[in-house]
C-alpha cells in the first residue's frame, strides 16, 4: 500500500516539478512583506547593535575601537550593581513564578468544573493590567491608607508607602508585581499541559490508591515538565531585560526625602541612560548586546531542546 502511494506521489511531483517552480515564486511573494520586517526588526537590529558596539561615536565621527566599549562599560560604577539587581530580582522571581504557577495549576486541576474555570479567569484578568498601569495600581495597593489590603499592610508594620518603595526593596517589589501580572497567563498554559495528560493515567493511579498529592507529584508533574522548563527559560530571558517597572517607579515615585529612586537599577535602564543621557551609543549597544546574547542563548535552548517547536512534524 505504501509503495503504491509513494510511487503515485513521485509521479505527481514529477508532473508538478514544472509547476513547482512557479509555486516557489508565489511563495516568496507571499512571504516577502514579513521577511522584510524580519530583516529590518529581527536580524537587522542584532547586527546593527553588534556592529555599533564596536565603535565610538563622537558627533559624526565613528572610530572603530574593538571591545573597548565592553571594557569601559564593565568598569562603570553602575555596571555591577545593575547586574546584581537584575540577578537578585531573578533569584526571587523565578522560584516564585515556578513554584507559584505550578502549585496553583495543580491545585486547580484537582477538580475541574465551573469553580476552577472561574478561578482561572480571575487569576488571568490582571494580565490586562500590564506594564506601566500595573505599577500605578501597585503603588495604590501598597499605600495603606487607600488600599483594600491596608489592614494586612499595617499588620506587617507598613504604615507608609515610602517604607516600601525603597531601592533596597525593589527586587522583591518587582518580583511580586510581575508575578501578579504574568502568573495568570502561565496558569492557563499549564492547564493546557495538564489537560493533555491522558486521564487513564490519573485514574489508574487513583485506583492503585494514590492520594491526590501523590498523583500530582508522580504523575502530573513529570508530564508537564517541559512546560515548566519552557516557562522558566522564557522568564529568565524576559526577566533580565526588566525595564518598565523600574523606570515607571523611578519616574512616578520618590524617596521619602523627595529625592529620585534609581534611574539605572536594571541593565536595560543603564543602557537607556548611556543612549539618552550620555549620548554614548557605543556603550548602550554594548550593554544591549550583553543582554541579547544571554536571551538568545536561552531562546536557542527553548527552540531546540524543549521539543515544543517540532516543526518537522508539521512538514509534509
Amino acid at each position, binding site marked *: 500500500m505504501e509503495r503504491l502511494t509513494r510511487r503515485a506521489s513521485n509521479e505527481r511531483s514529477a508532473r508538478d516539478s514544472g509547476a513547482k517552480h512557479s*509555486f*516557489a515564486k*508565489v*511563495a516568496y511573494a507571499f*512571504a516577502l*512583506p514579513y521577511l522584510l*520586517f*524580519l530583516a529590518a*526588526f529581527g536580524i*537587522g*537590529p542584532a547586527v546593527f547593535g553588534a556592529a555599533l558596539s564596536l565603535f565610538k561615536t563622537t558627533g559624526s565621527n565613528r572610530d572603530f575601537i574593538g571591545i573597548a566599549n565592553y571594557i569601559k562599560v564593565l568598569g562603570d560604577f553602575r555596571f555591577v550593581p545593575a547586574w546584581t539587581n537584575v540577578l537578585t530580582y531573578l533569584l526571587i522571581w523565578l522560584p516564585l513564578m515556578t513554584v507559584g504557577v505550578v502549585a496553583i495549576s495543580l*491545585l486547580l486541576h*484537582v*477538580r*475541574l468544573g465551573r469553580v*476552577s474555570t472561574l478561578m482561572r479567569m480571575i*487569576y488571568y484578568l*490582571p494580565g*490586562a*493590567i500590564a*506594564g*506601566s*498601569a500595573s505599577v*500605578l*495600581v*501597585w503603588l495604590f*495597593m501598597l*499605600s495603606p*491608607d487607600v*488600599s*483594600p489590603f*491596608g489592614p494586612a499592610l499595617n499588620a506587617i508594620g507598613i504604615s507608609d508607602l515610602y517604607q516600601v518603595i525603597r531601592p533596597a526593596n525593589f527586587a522583591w517589589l518587582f518580583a511580586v508585581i510581575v508575578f*501578579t501580572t504574568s502568573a495568570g497567563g502561565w496558569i492557563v*498554559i499549564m*492547564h*493546557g499541559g495538564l489537560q493533555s495528560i491522558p*486521564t487513564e493515567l490519573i485514574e489508574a493511579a*487513583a485506583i492503585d490508591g494514590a492520594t*491526590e498529592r501523590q498523583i500530582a507529584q508522580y504523575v502530573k508533574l513529570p508530564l508537564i515538565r517541559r512546560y515548566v522548563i519552557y516557562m522558566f527559560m*522564557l522568564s529568565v530571558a*524576559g526577566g533580565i*531585560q526588566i525595564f518598565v517597572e523600574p*523606570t515607571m517607579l523611578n*519616574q*512616578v*515615585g*520618590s524617596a*521619602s526625602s*523627595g529625592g529620585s529612586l534609581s534611574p539605572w537599577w536594571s541593565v536595560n535602564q543603564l543602557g537607556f541612560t548611556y*543612549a539618552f543621557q550620555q549620548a554614548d551609543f557605543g556603550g*548602550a*549597544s554594548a*550593554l*544591549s548586546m550583553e*543582554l*541579547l546574547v544571554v536571551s538568545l542563548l*536561552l531562546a536557542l535552548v527553548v527552540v531546540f531542546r524543549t521539543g515544543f*517547536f517540532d*516543526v518537522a512534524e*508539521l512538514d509534509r
Partner: protein
Amino acid sequence: MAGRLSRRSVWSRARRPHVRLPGFASIARVIVLAALAVYWGLPLLWLVLAPSKTNYQLSNGPPISFGAVGQLYDTIRHLFGYNHGEVAQWLLNTAFYTLSTLLIAVTCSLLAGYAFALFKFRGRRLFLFLTLVAMVLPDTAMILPVFLEMKTVGLINTALSVILPSAFFPFGVYLAYVYYATSMSREVFDAARVDGCSEVQLFLRIAFPLSLPLVGLVGFFNFVGTWNSYFLPYVMLADDAKYNLPVGIGALASGAGVFRAGPVLTDILRPEIALAALVTVLPILVIFLVSQRTLVRGILAGATKG
C-alpha cells in the same frame, strides 16, 4: 497523525478523573483558591471603583465601595481636561498605533504563515528557525538597537517609529504556520488549481475565509501587546502629544506628583490617576472578558507562548 494538534483532542470536553479529596483537604483547597481570587481580583475591583470617589474618600472610607456618580463625572472632567485634553489625545494615539500595527501584522503573518505551511522553497527552514528564535526572544531585547536604526533613517518621534517595529510579529507567523499546516486540505487546493485558480485567488477565495479564527487569535495577541507597549514608545517618542497611554500615564503621574512626598498639582489627584490607569487597561480587560472561551481554546491549540 497530528496528535496533540488534532481538533478532536483539543476541542473535546475534558474527561474528569474520578479522584476524591478527603473533606478537610477539599475545603482547604477552596479556601486557598478563594484567597488567591481575592488577591488577584481585589485590585481590579478597587480600580474600577476608585474614580467614583474623591481623594479624601479614597483614604478615609472603605476601599471597596462606590462613591458617587457626580464624583465620577468630576474625575472624568479633571482627567480629560488636563493639559488641553492630552489624555484623549493619548487614547487616540494608542488606538491609531495599535490598529495600524494590527492591520500590518495580521496581513503579513497570514501571508507568510500560509507560504511557510503550504509551499516548499529555498530558505524556508532558515526563515522558520529565525522566526522561532525571534518569537521566543523578549521584545525588549532589541529596542535600543531598533532605536538606533530608526535614528539612522530619521524616523524618530514619528508614528511609524512605533508602528513598524511592533508590526514585526513572528509569533503571528508561527500561529498562522501551525494553523495552515494542520487545517488546510490539499485536495481542495489541488482541485482548484486544476480548475485554473491562481495562487492569489486560492488564498483569497479558499484559505482566507477559513482563517477567521486565526485572524482573531493573531489579532488578539498583537493588539494586547501593542496597546500595552511602554518601552518602545518611551524610547521613540519625544513629544508628549504623541505618547500612547502607557507612556502618557507615567508622565501624568510623574507630573502630578501624586506618589511623591511634597506638593501636588491641584487637579490631578489619586482618583484621576486611577481613572487614567483604568482607561488604559479597559479595552484589554473587555477583550479578555469577552473572548475568554475562544482565547483559552486558542492558547491550548498550539500557542505555547505566555
